[in-house]
């Protein structure tokens, strides 16, 4: 004979990641590190922006480069002579706090005051996975189409800074960069939005200032 039982579980599957994200943040703060994570689609310009920040600031930077195969981006960043850890997500579409925790363990934390995390190119899945960073920068390029912002509201709602990149190409691809600015403002009324063209040197200074300002206010 069997009996039937109703067992209360009440387990939040998202909580495991959030707890690890909190642990990462505490680890950063205990080591005097300000952490920024970059999200954006494939080819939006995340790696180029990180390279430009390394070359144009005096921070002691460490980088965690996440990708389905991370050696390509990690190799680019390594050339700038900063400590970098590549995190392979393999089949997964996002970094999670657990992977980041492992990556952090391989960095010389005492020598770092700005940790940059580059997420996998994806505007959807990273929404569900906080990493423990102090600032999330979403990079979107006009070449992705000027409806990209309104199609991905939640990633923009969670952004601390939105970079609309490759504005020099807007006309060539028939995209309206100002529409993207308006869409981001509608989704996240208080977010800072910067139009940039890294190739033309537009916007980089403003982005660096925005990071410095957020770092000051933590």
């Amino acid at each position, binding site marked *: 004979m069997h*009996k039937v039982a109703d*067992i209360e579980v*009440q387990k939040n599957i*998202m909580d495991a990641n959030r707890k690890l994200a909190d642990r990462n943040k505490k680890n950063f703060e205990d080591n005097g590190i300000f952490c920024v994570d970059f999200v954006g689609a494939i080819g939006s310009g995340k790696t180029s922006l990180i390279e430009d920040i390394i070359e144009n600031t005096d921070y002691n930077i460490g980088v965690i480069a996440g990708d389905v195969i991370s050696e390509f981006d990690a190799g680019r960043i390594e050339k700038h002579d900063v400590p970098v850890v590549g995190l392979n997500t393999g089949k997964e579409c996002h970094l999670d706090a657990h992977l980041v925790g492992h990556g952090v363990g391989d960095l010389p934390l005492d020598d770092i005051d700005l940790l940059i995390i580059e997420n996998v190119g994806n505007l959807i899945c990273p929404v569900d996975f906080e990493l423990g960073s102090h600032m999330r920068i979403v990079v979107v390029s006009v070449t992705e189409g000027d409806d990209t912002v309104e199609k991905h509201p939640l990633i923009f*709602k969670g952004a601390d800074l939105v970079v609309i990149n490759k504005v020099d190409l807007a006309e060539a691809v028939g995209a309206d960069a100002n529409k993207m600015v308006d869409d981001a403002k509608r989704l996240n*009324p208080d977010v800072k939005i910067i139009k940039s063209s890294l190739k033309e040197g537009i916007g980089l200074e403003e982005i660096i200032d925005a990071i410095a300002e957020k770092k000051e206010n933590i």
Partner: protein
Amino acid sequence: MHELSMAQGIINTVLETAENNGATEVNKIYIEVGKLAMLNPEQLKFLLDVLVENTMAENAKIDILEVPVTISCPECGYEGVANLDDSDHYAPIIECPKCENLRISILGGRDCIVKNIIVEKPDEE
């Protein structure tokens, strides 16, 4: 495609709970998915059905309840269910239903929770 890792987390939780309670079979699994979680309930259900194969939850009925988004509005003080402009699970613009403010704080609707399971257990004797 992180439905798979979420589904695996759900199944691990279900099987662990069932085992810890001395169950021999899982009959029903109740799950709540928030409307702001980037999870498609249909895909999640499909993957759960695959993952339960050859486990004690193989024949379990899986029930996924979608949970609305709740907010608080600093403008008018409203607290409760938000207006979503779009019935599409993935693209809601969230606004206060009272004053249409978009500067709101999200209180709930981002989670994926295993609520409870119905299991069969052998009689004590």
